[in-house]
């Protein structure tokens, strides 16, 4: 069938089952936007391309489907960069279509020209510059395949303006031929059996659940292992929600702001089984003293993750659905009652640690404690909202005090730590899950980084509830300055202090509420949940609070700071 390049792109998106696109038009992509005008695809116009990228990312994290974003050439495309890097660090499937100047003027420093394939090479799984219009269907097919298979990630397709307008014979390919790309789904049975043997010998095994468990939809298999063998488990930030927070085997988050029990369990276990984790420095602390008594097992689909940070004794490469299923089969014949008895003792020991060292904070009747806000949000939403966060103290308090019980209910920028992620990501999440309660927990610093997207929320009347943990400061920066820079608060407080978030929300047409005392907190939350449309709540919290416990950067996990004395 004859059609233009732009029509070919739209057609291919439909063939891939895309329903929603996030984007922002401009000169370089005008032919594509013209083709979208006649298509049934839903397009969400954000107020900034970065917002579009995070929205597509949020959509992808909430659904597991590929998020799609469109931007124009040059500045439009460079505005996507933070969003692409964020998705890349957290292995989020995304396809980014960028416009490019015409083929004949590429490389001439033409108006709105930027070398996007060059710029995005280090932060994408793959990228394309389409030079021949007839390659478009093949490249779109490949891009979606690459984005969502193996270890997911973002793919950029840079399309020159005249490629959009050229006429081609359209035929969407069934087959994909990529000699260099063959992710391994079913690994080696031998590797599984070795892990099963190591487990049999272990007296203090510990499961370490990461984001890979969620993105590979393998939570039910981890659940079965935990139910059957009662092995204690810890979670990375990205793994929260994979297993119910209140499961008796779950010790919660590990690492810099992890629970005492989780960190102590790492220090004491004799076999640490990492499932879809990448042993980030925020998790391990001082590498030389990470899990000092343990042999380490690493399950991952990406062979490059093995031995990248932590030296492993056992590896299993493959899709977690295959490898965990195989592990269950292998364990069936190997684990006897004596082994189970050892594990029970170990479980009792870590549970005792967990009971003796709960996450706590000193509540107040005078000032609003941020942790209290999170507890109250958790209570009133019955731990059942999809919670999006920005980055900073509020993010860690959310991880600590909100109970995550389902996968894909914590949507947050883990690896890159992108402030400004939350508000636009919440748009994508609410678009993907219109029936769910979407709660955004953000800080005053993070919110201001992409606050223009309030306009997008209002335009679509997305019923997102936004909790602004407003401490008039860049809280996490301030906390580090307090602990490690002799309280020299260099440029970490908003001295103007005058941003009125209620009026900011109202200026965009959203509802704004405020709580200044602890007793107002439950009422304001209840009111916000009753209102149908978007609501922004300004919680004027105590600015002195620290996220605790804390393992200082580069310290070992048993060097936890549990209180601060000034």
């Amino acid at each position: 069938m004859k059609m233009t390049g732009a029509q070919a792109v739209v057609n291919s998106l439909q063939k891939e089952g895309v329903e929603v696109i996030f984007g922002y038009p401009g000169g370089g992509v005008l032919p594509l936007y013209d083709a979208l005008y006649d298509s049934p695809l839903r397009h969400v116009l954000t107020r900034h391309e970065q917002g579009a990228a995070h929205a597509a990312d949020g959509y992808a994290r909430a659904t597991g489907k590929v998020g799609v974003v469109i931007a124009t050439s040059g500045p439009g495309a460079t505005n996507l960069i933070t969003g692409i890097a964020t998705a890349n660090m957290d292995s989020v499937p995304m396809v980014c279509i960028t416009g490019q100047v015409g083929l004949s003027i590429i490389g001439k420093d033409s108006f709105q020209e930027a070398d996007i394939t060059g710029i995005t090479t280090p932060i994408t799984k793959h990228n394309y510059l389409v030079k021949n219009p007839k390659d478009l269907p093949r490249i779109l097919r490949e891009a979606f395949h690459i984005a969502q298979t193996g270890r997911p990630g973002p793919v950029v397709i840079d399309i020159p303006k005249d490629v959009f307008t050229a006429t081609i014979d359209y035929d969407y390919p069934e087959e994909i031929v990529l000699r260099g790309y063959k992710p391994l789904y079913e690994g080696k049975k031998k590797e599984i059996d070795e892990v099963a043997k190591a487990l049999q010998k272990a007296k203090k095994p510990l499961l370490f659940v990461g984001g890979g468990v969620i993105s590979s939809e393998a939570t039910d298999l981890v659940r079965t292992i935990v139910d059957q063998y009662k092995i204690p488990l810890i979670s990375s930030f990205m793994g929260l929600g994979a297993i119910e927070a209140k499961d008796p085997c779950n010790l919660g988050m590990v690492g810099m702001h992890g629970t005492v029990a989780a960190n102590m369990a790492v220090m004491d276990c004799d076999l640490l089984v990492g499932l879809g984790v990448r042993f980030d420095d925020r998790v391990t602390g001082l590498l030389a003293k990470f899990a000092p008594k343990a042999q380490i097992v690493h399950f991952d689909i990406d062979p490059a993750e093995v031995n990248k940070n932590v030296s492993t004794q056992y590896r299993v490469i493959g899709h977690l659905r295959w490898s965990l299923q195989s592990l269950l089969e292998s364990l069936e014949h190997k684990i006897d009652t004596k082994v189970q008895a050892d594990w029970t003792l170990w479980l009792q020991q870590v549970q005792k640690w967990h009971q003796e060292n709960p996450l706590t904070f000193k509540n107040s009747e005078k000032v609003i404690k941020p942790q209290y806000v999170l507890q109250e949000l958790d209570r009133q939403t019955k731990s059942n909202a999809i919670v999006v966060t920005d980055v900073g103290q509020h993010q860690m308090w959310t991880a600590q005090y909100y109970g995550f019980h389902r996968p894909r209910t914590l949507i947050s920028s883990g690896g890159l730590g992108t402030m400004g992620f939350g508000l636009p990501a919440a748009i994508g999440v609410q678009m993907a899950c219109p029936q769910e309660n979407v709660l955004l927990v953000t800080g005053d610093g993070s919110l201001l980084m992409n606050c223009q997207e309030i306009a997008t929320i209002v335009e679509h009347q997305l019923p997102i509830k936004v909790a602004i943990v407003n401490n008039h400061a860049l809280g996490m920066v301030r906390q580090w300055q307090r602990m490690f820079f002799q309280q020299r608060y260099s440029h970490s407080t908003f001295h103007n202090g005058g941003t009125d978030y209620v009026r900011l929300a109202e200026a965009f047409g959203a509802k704004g509420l405020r709580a200044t005392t602890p007793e107002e907190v439950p009422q304001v939350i209840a009111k916000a949940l009753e209102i149908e449309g978007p609501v922004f709540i300004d919680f004027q919290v105590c600015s002195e609070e620290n996220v605790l416990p804390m393992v200082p950067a580069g310290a070992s996990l048993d060097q936890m700071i549990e209180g601060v004395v000034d």
Partner: protein
Amino acid sequence: MRHTLAVLVENRPGVLVHVSGLIARRAFNIESISAGHTEEPDMTRITIVVDGDERNIEQVVTQLSKLIDVIKIIDLTEEASIERELALIKVKATPETRSDIVDIVEIFRAKIVDINRETMVIELTGEERKIDALCQVLQDHGIVELVRTGKIALSRNPGAAKNKE
């Protein structure tokens, strides 16, 4: 330890930048890199010499394997293989020193590829050490300019790298 890797990639523009960029940003040290096309027109072979311990090399290989355009990577370090570099050396040569230099060139089985009143250009193919040795000897006469390629390597095994399991 230095490792010689044969990296087979799709013959596409920018692929050398992808490969070298990945190695650089992951903080691995490239000793030499050379690229050229192969018996298959759509395949380029890049020979990379990297220095590092076993874990480092494992990471170089697994990280490079993640690139979609990388078809296969073979570590030739442990295999019996032919390794070559090419050098062109411009050396000062007066009528008095010329015959000396010709002797040296013959001993090394090198070739004189250009000559004028003041200089000569010598071409030598061989293993790195042989080229180093010639350069050292020629230094006495004064090297004006010197250019060396990166290393290329081919396994002595009868099969092709592309078919290796």
